[in-house]
């Protein structure tokens, strides 16, 4: 009659009843809603019966009760592990406080858009400003943007930014011991721009960036240098400051990659001389979410030459027009795509604002001392694990230098391949570390294991016990 798709009631789109529809059609001056689609050329216009034949959803609307049950069934097919996975590599199992989940589920934050209208969005803007400000304290960097998609894309945008600031220099130094996933993102982003990524070696004994190699490769063509600390091996780079000083001597920009939880114990990038810092905020109360949403951290030193080239949104402090009270507004928007279009510093529009708020709540909840404590716990648990696992005969000191909460374990010469170890653990519903032999063939059978505050002593003992058993079996001991 009114042309509406029949047989349908679903609370979310039943905002109009039959009478409303009649009134609207009459006001518009048509008999049927289908007339409103008549300007779609017939060749492209979908007939109802054709549309309903497509494999979309379950062919019919599901009730809420059905749906919840269905989703529970599906999620039930994920393996319920006995302990959180002993896996890191840029994303870590960390505790997500209910306070964080509660705050980001509040509709006023959750269902808001980017605060284009500042006067009615002050609370949201203050929350994002607080994220920027709290992160600035953690990093001891002055300017932090409202978020990037994740660490990899933040790093990629940093490399692009460096090449804009240092126009005419075509090289960017990126050590071999940084996260290989991040490196792939950098490759994809920079390829069209002809930026030459120059790999810097790591010291095979310490696992740290090879300072000599940095010296050799740094030249007048180098736009910037990246150091990740702790690096991909979990090793704490002790020479970050030296590398950054070398970079500055040659007029290159210094980019630091950080894991925020580690900064409870490690010197912040600002103090080490970074011009730009990037990182992954996932560890600050976000959950791993099988890869996203995460939180790309992007920060720069206070220097207008850098700030004007930053990607992403920035919330700043201002006042009301009459000057009577504090207020927040989006600042330096002339860098962004909606104004500068093809000349924008980035194409980013939708970011990870809600995740930034989550991180702000997390940092507020812990405070500076709590962040310190959290880092210590991570350090202790990982070092306890290292002791336990070396006791059972594993080579847990592939590298000499100290590590934060993750370290590689070598399975070379133990009589079993890591793949079999992994299978053995999985059979007991324990998820081991990340096999890195494919990225670093020189390390052979090596896997990266991570330990955080969510792993109890018992968890670690369970892992050690199970591994010990698997090794004995590998040696033919029953």
């Amino acid at each position, binding site marked *: 009659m009114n042309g*509406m*798709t*029949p047989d349908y009631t679903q609370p*979310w789109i039943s*905002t*109009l009843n039959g009478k409303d529809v009649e009134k609207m059609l009459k*006001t*518009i*001056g048509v008999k049927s809603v289908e007339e409103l689609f008549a300007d779609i050329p017939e060749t*492209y216009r979908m007939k109802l019966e054709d549309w*309903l034949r497509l494999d979309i*959803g379950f062919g019919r609307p*599901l009730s809420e009760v059905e*749906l919840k049950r269905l989703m529970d069934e*599906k999620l039930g*097919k*994920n393996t319920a592990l006995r302990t959180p996975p002993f896996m890191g590599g*840029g994303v870590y199992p960390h505790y997500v406080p209910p306070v964080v989940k509660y*705050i980001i589920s509040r*509709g*006023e934050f*959750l269902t*808001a*858009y980017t605060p284009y209208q500042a*006067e*009615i969005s*002050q609370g949201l803007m*203050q*929350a994002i*400003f607080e994220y920027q400000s709290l992160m600035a304290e953690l990093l001891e960097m002055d300017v932090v*943007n409202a978020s990037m998609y994740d660490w990899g*894309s933040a790093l990629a945008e940093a490399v*692009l930014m460096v090449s804009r600031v240092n126009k005419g220099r075509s090289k960017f130094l990126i050590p071999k011991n940084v996260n290989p*996933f991040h490196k792939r993102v950098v490759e*994809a982003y920079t390829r*069209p721009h002809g930026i030459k990524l120059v790999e810097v070696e790591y010291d095979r004994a310490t696992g740290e960036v090879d300072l000599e190699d940095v010296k050799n490769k740094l030249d007048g063509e180098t736009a910037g240098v990246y150091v990740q600390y702790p690096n991909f091996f979990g090793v704490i780079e*002790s020479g970050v400051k030296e590398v950054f000083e070398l970079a500055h001597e040659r007029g290159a920009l210094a980019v630091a990659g950080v894991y925020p939880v580690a*900064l409870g114990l490690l010197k912040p990038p600002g103090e080490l001389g970074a011009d730009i810092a990037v990182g992954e905020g996932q560890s600050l109360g976000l*959950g*791993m*979410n099988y890869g*996203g949403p995460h939180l790309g951290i992007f920060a720069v030193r206070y220097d207008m030459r850098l700030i004007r080239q930053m990607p992403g949104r920035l919330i700043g402090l201002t006042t*009301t027009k009459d000057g009577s009270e504090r*207020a927040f507004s989006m*600042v*330096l928007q002339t860098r962004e795509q909606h104004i500068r*279009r*093809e000349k924008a510093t980035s*194409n*980013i529009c*939708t970011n990870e604002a809600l995740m930034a708020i989550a991180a702000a709540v997390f940092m507020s909840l*812990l405070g*500076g001392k709590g*962040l*310190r404590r959290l880092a210590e*716990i991570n350090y202790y*648990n990982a070092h*306890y694990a290292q*002791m336990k696992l070396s006791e059972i005969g594993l080579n847990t000191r592939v590298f000499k230098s*100290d590590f934060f909460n993750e370290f590689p374990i070598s399975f070379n010469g133990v009589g079993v391949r890591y793949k079999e170890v992994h299978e053995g653990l999985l059979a007991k519903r324990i998820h081991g570390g990340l096999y890195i032999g494919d990225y670093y063939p020189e390390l052979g059978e090596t896997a990266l294991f991570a330990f955080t505050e969510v792993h109890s002593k018992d968890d670690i003992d369970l892992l050690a016990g199970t591994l010990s058993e698997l090794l004995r079996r590998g040696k033919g001991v029953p």
Partner: protein
Amino acid sequence: MFRQAKWNEPLILEYPDKGFTGLSLDSYSDSTARAVGEIRIPKGVLRDTPPNIPGLPEVEVVRHYTRLSQMSYGVDNGPVPLGSCTMKYNPRIAWWVAFDERIANLHPLQDERTVQGLLEILFELQKWLANITGMDVCTLHPAAGAHGELAGVLTIRRYHEMKGRADLKREIIVPDSAHGTNPASASMAGFVTVTVPTGEDGNIDLEALRAVVGERTAGLMITNPSTLGLFEERIGDIVKLVHEYDALLYYDGANLNGILGYARPGDMGFDIAHLNLHKTFSSPHGGGGPGAGPVCVKDRVVDEDKNIRLSDLLPGYLVVYDEEKGIYRLRHPGPHSVGLIKSFFGNVVPLVWAYVYIASLGPQGLRRVSEHAVLATNYFVKLVEGVRGFEVPYGKGRFRKNEVVLSAKPLAEETGVTAMDVAKGLLDAGFYAPTVYFPLIVKEALQVEFTESEAIENIERYAERLKEISRVAYENPDEAKKWPINTSVKLIDYVKGDHPKTLAPTWRVYVRKQRGELS
């Protein structure tokens, strides 16, 4: 009458430090700490003092952010008819599922066999999105619409590289009504943007397009319905023209809500399309993000001899079903692929949210979505047509789809009350404002999109308020210049926020400027 909450809430960094450490985690680690003893981090990299962040009781933190939320406005508060943004209701059942710990606790590099439930959901979502768009293969990798665009234009670039003419194919064409991300994405992939004008009828000026399409054209990016809310009637001719030069057609799916179930980009001849799950498929916008911007392609042949198809060039992972083993697996980006544009899989929470939305509505409901949305737009047009000071430029007499663009140009010229003032007047009545000053081709633009979520009464109230604003503008424009007065703060000074002298993007900068450490 509307009055927004107002708390004189200090920054968390202005709270006095009470010395608390928030979470209680210690019992877990006392024994490991004892066993380990000293922290052996080298002095040169050991942090001297904890971060300068106060330690507060949990209740104070909860109150602080609760108060901030009360000075905020989302779809849960009232209509947010931001054009182009598709601010629909975000169903809570989807929240319940998408925020489930059985998803939150999954590591992206976990063994595939331990995440079969999630992979099944993502596999089905890929398939549904392909059917909804009329495309063949979808990747769920990109984190937002613009990220999908980047995936798309990088794929276009790869395509021409594989065909050995990347040096020639240097240009991406976009209409002048395009969203800013389109040309910005083109630049990020190293292309030059060529702009084509929109005709009076709201369609792309075909003659102008003919004049710029050529051997150098790598691709064309368009939104259909356009950002004017008008369906591009000559899309068939455009597709043909662009394909003649072996350039690819990119569909910006931001406005899919206006044709959902009625037309599909794949059928129109597009090669690549992104969707904004945080628009069309009800995933909440979170005050700016997260989003999810899956990209779908027609799996056309790129290299016959090597059996390379367009989907082989896409960045990111594909969930595939391994018939032999009976399990779902991740297909990693291969040698011809753009690679990764995000460290790991994709934004899974919005993806699962969209899955629940689609499953719940079914094909019937999805088609109803666009019917309601289009009905709402055109009803609103009728209500505001003839309101003094406003006009509806482009495509006179044509029906709109997901949105309509009003121009307050006459109002601005005759009374000095601008589109921005109108926006503030709407805030004052407890509504969120439309998107203003976009698309750029409309002077004093107000882009309005109600979506399927608004009841008729809300649309009528919105129109009433616009009439009221018009009346005030003509009778007492000074009053209109004072808006808003009912929001938590009055009109904000944007110039001060932007001025290099007063610029303070963090509290740290503000404090350091006060101390004279920065200028």
